[in-house]
C-alpha cells in the first residue's frame, strides 16, 4: 500500500515536471525560430535570389541601395548624376522588357540566344540599367553587375518606406509600421485608461453589491467577443461614422483602430485594476474615514496609492494587448504604410502587416524574412511592456 502511494507520487511528480518542461521548451523554440528567421534578413540584399542588376561597363556607378534601385525603376530618378554617376539619362529594362525587344527567331528555341542578346544590348546602351535572372548571364559578360548593399538593421528600423514587392529590389523600412503600431496603441490607451480606471474605481468603491454583480459579467463578456467581430463592428459602424464626423475621404484611420483597441483592452484594464483596488485593506479605508476624510478623499489618498502598482500593471497589460492585436486593427486602419501625422490618417501596424503579407511572401525569401524581423520588433516591444509590469509589481511600499 505504502509502496503504491510512493509510486503514484513519483508518477505525479514526473507528469508535472514533463508538462512544465515541454511548455517552457516550446515557448523557447518559438522565440528561437522567430529570431532565426528574422535575423536571416540581415545578411541578404533586397534583391530576390538569382536575380542580377546590371549596367553598362562604362558606367561610373559602383553600388546602389535598394531604395535607389526602386526609385530608378519607378522613374523617380531619371539621370545617373542623381546617384553619383555621369550626366546620362537612365533607361530601365526588366527581364520582360529585354526579352520583348527581340523576335522569337532571334531568341531561338528555349531562348538560347538571350544571354548574348542581353550582353550586346547593354554594351550598346551606356545609360541602361537592367535586371534579369542570373541564368541569362553570359559567361564572359562584358557589362557590370551592380552589387546591392546588404540590408542593415539600422536601415530596416529607421527606413521610412515599406515596398516589399517592388522589383527588382524590395525596400524594407519598418519605421512607418513601428510608428503606426505605437500611434494606434497610444490612442487606444489615451481612450481606455480614463474610462477603464473610472469604471474600475466605480465598481470597486462606489457601486453596490447588486450593481457590481451585474456590471462585472458584462465587462468580462467584452473580452470574450472574438476580435474579428470587433473589426466587423468597426468597419461597418465606426469607420463610416468617423468619415462623416470629420468629413474625411476615407474613414479607415488610426482613430478607428484606437477606438476599437480601446474597447478591446477595457476588460483587461477594468478587471485587473478593480482587483487591485479591492486589495486595499478595509482597515485602511476605515482609518481614513474615521479621521473625517470624505469618501472621495479616501479614494484618492488611500485606496488609489495603495493599489497603485496593480493599477499600473493593469494599464501596461492593456497596452500589451493593444500592441499585439491584429485582426480588428487590420480591418479598420486602412493599412497605408506611411508615417502618420494625425489620428485621422490611415496607418498600418506591425501585426496587421504580418497578417496581410505573409500569405503572399515566398517561403524563405527576403520578404518572408522581413516579416519575421517585424515579428522580432513586435516581440521586443511587448517584452518591454511585460518587463515593466514585473518591475512595477515587485515594487511594493
Amino acid at each position, binding site marked *: 500500500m505504502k509502496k503504491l502511494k510512493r509510486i503514484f507520487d513519483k508518477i505525479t511528480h514526473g507528469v508535472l515536471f514533463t508538462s512544465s518542461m515541454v511548455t517552457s521548451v516550446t515557448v523557447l523554440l518559438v522565440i528561437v525560430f522567430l529570431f532565426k528567421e528574422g535575423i536571416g534578413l540581415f545578411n541578404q540584399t533586397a534583391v530576390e535570389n538569382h536575380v542580377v542588376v546590371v549596367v553598362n561597363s562604362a558606367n561610373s556607378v559602383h553600388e546602389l541601395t535598394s531604395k535607389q534601385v526602386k526609385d530608378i525603376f519607378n522613374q523617380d530618378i531619371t539621370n545617373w548624376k542623381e546617384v553619383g554617376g555621369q550626366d546620362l539619362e537612365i533607361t530601365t529594362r526588366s527581364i520582360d522588357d529585354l526579352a520583348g525587344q527581340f523576335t522569337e527567331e532571334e531568341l531561338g528555341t528555349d531562348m538560347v540566344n538571350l544571354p548574348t542578346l542581353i550582353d550586346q544590348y547593354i554594351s550598346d546602351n551606356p545609360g541602361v540599367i537592367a535586371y534579369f535572372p542570373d541564368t541569362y548571364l553570359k559567361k564572359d559578360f562584358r557589362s557590370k553587375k551592380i552589387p546591392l548593399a546588404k540590408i542593415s538593421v539600422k536601415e530596416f528600423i529607421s527606413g521610412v518606406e515599406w515596398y516589399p514587392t517592388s522589383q527588382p529590389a524590395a525596400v524594407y523600412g519598418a519605421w512607418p509600421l513601428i510608428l503606426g503600431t505605437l500611434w494606434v496603441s497610444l490612442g487606444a490607451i489615451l481612450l481606455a485608461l480614463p474610462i477603464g480606471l473610472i469604471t474600475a474605481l466605480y465598481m470597486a468603491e462606489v457601486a453596490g453589491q447588486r450593481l457590481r454583480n451585474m456590471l462585472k459579467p458584462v465587462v468580462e463578456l467584452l473580452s470574450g467577443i472574438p476580435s474579428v467581430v470587433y473589426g466587423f463592428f468597426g468597419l461597418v459602424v465606426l469607420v463610416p461614422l468617423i468619415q462623416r464626423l470629420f468629413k474625411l475621404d476615407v474613414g479607415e484611420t488610426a482613430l478607428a483602430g484606437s477606438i476599437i483597441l480601446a474597447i478591446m483592452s477595457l476588460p483587461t484594464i477594468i478587471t485587473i485594476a478593480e482587483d487591485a483596488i479591492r486589495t486595499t485593506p478595509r482597515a485602511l479605508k476605515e*482609518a481614513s474615514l474615521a479621521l*473625517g476624510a470624505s469618501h472621495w478623499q479616501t479614494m484618492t489618498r*488611500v485606496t488609489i496609492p495603495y493599489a497603485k502598482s496593480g493599477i499600473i500593471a493593469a494599464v501596461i497589460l492593456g497596452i500589451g494587448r493593444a500592441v499585439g492585436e491584429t485582426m480588428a486593427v487590420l480591418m479598420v486602419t486602412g493599412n497605408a504604410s506611411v508615417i502618420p501625422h494625425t489620428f485621422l490618417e490611415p496607418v498600418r501596424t506591425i501585426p496587421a502587416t504580418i497578417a496581410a503579407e505573409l500569405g503572399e511572401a515566398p517561403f524563405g525569401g527576403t520578404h518572408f524574412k522581413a516579416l519575421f524581423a517585424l515579428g522580432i520588433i513586435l516581440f521586443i516591444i511587448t517584452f518591454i511592456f511585460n518587463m515593466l509590469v514585473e518591475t512595477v509589481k515587485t515594487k511594493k511600499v
Partner: protein
Amino acid sequence: MSDHKVEVKNLDLYYNDFHALKNINFTAEAKTVSAFIGPSGCGKSSLLRMFNRMNDLIDGTRFTGEVFVDGQDIYEKNIDVDGLRKNVGMVFQKPNPFPKTIFENVAYGLRVNGVKDKHFIEKKVTEAIKQAALWDEVKDKLKKSAMELSGGQQQRLCIARALAVEPALILMDEPASALDPISTGKIEDLIFELKNQYSIIIVTHNLQQAGRISDFTAFFYMGELVEWNKTKTIFTNPTDIRTQNYITGRFG
C-alpha cells in the same frame, strides 16, 4: 438637549436579520473613560461604531432609536458625517497605519480636513506624537515609513493620528488586544493621561484592563446592556447574576 457627552436612547441595531443590539440606553460623561466589556459577539463593538457612524459602511445595517454626541443627534438627516468623524476619533483593534511616512500618517487627518498651513501641521503633528508618548522613539525618523515601526509603536502612532485632529471623543476598539504586555502597559498609561483632556470609550476583552483604566464600565451580553455603573461598583458589587458570573470568570 442633554449635557452628556454621549447619550443613547432606545437603540436597536440589526445586521440584516441579526438583532445585534437590543434596546440600549446609555450615557457617558465628558473627561471620563467608559469601558465596554462582555464576551465576543455581545454587541460592544457594534455600539462603539454607532458613535462615529462606522456602521454606515456595512451593508444591511439598520437601527431604531437615537444617538447623541454633545447633545447633537448624529443620525439626523442633514448631519455632516465627515465633520462628525473628525470630532469623534477612533483607534482600531489592529494597528492600521497608512503606508506613508510617520509624519504623513499623523498629518493625514489635518490635510483631509483642509489644513494647508505647513507650520501649523508641523506643530500639531509634533504635539500629537508627544501626547501619544511616541516622540522619543520616532523623532529622528519622521520621514521613514510607518510600516517599519513595531506593532505597539504603530498603535501609538494611530492614537497620535486620532489626536492630531483634536477630537472631542475618542473611541477605542480593543486597542491593546494585538499587542504584547509591555506595549499594552504603555497604551494604558497613555489612556490614563489622555483622560484629562478627552472623553474616551474603550472596548476591551481584558477585565483587568477595564478595572485599571476606566471610570465607568458597561457589561454587554447577547446584544443587551446588562449592567452599567461605576467601574468599582461593577467589579465589587454587581447587581446582575450574569455580570457576576462574567467577572468571576465563569463564562466568556
